């Protein structure tokens, strides 16, 4: 599997995927950490990919998503956005609905 196939495999076979710096237990950037907190507040069931452990994917996903920064949240195979979009959707009450729509909650 090449890197694009790996990305597609991850986002198509997992309802919620968070590409982040570090891990949920040890986020290595404030924006990744805030996104984890919001997902936890929504009781989201998600997998994470630590982009520091996969330099090839880190660069490829930026181009694939047309999005130059991390974190990146995918729900149902679609890019939702980075930290500030996730915060915005949470404040508007839309994020829990989006998660529920893909069975992405605990």
């Amino acid at each position, binding site marked *: 599997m090449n890197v694009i196939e790996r990305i597609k495999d991850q986002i198509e076979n997992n309802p919620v995927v968070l590409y982040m710096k570090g891990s949920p237990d040890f986020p*290595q*950037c*404030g*924006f990744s950490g805030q996104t984890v907190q919001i997902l936890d507040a929504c009781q989201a069931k998600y997998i994470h990919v630590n982009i520091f452990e996969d330099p090839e994917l880190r660069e490829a996903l930026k181009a694939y998503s*047309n*999005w*130059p*920064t991390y974190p990146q949240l995918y729900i149902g195979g679609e*890019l*939702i*956005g*980075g930290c*500030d*979009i996730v915060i*915005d*959707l949470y404040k508007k009450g839309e994020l829990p609905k989006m998660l529920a729509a893909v069975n992405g909650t605990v």
Partner: protein
Amino acid sequence: MTSELIKQALTAAFKPALIEIIDNSAAHAGHAGSQSGGGHFHVTIVAQAFEGKSLVQRHQLVYKALGDMMKQQIHALGINALSPSEDTKGSL
């Protein structure tokens, strides 16, 4: 100044009705992301190009206009992108 370059790039791309850049870099000095030299900025921009676009699409348009600046000069960018019809609250 990076904030001036951001303003020039976005003004050229969107002909905005309003644009404001805030440089928050000082608040983040010293953490891992800023060590590579990238700054933290927040941009508020009002332009016709955002009419009818989703949040993701609006951010993608802004990132595209900034191009390579996102790789070096900018570590993080907060974006508040509105269309002229949405900018009615007088909050700016």
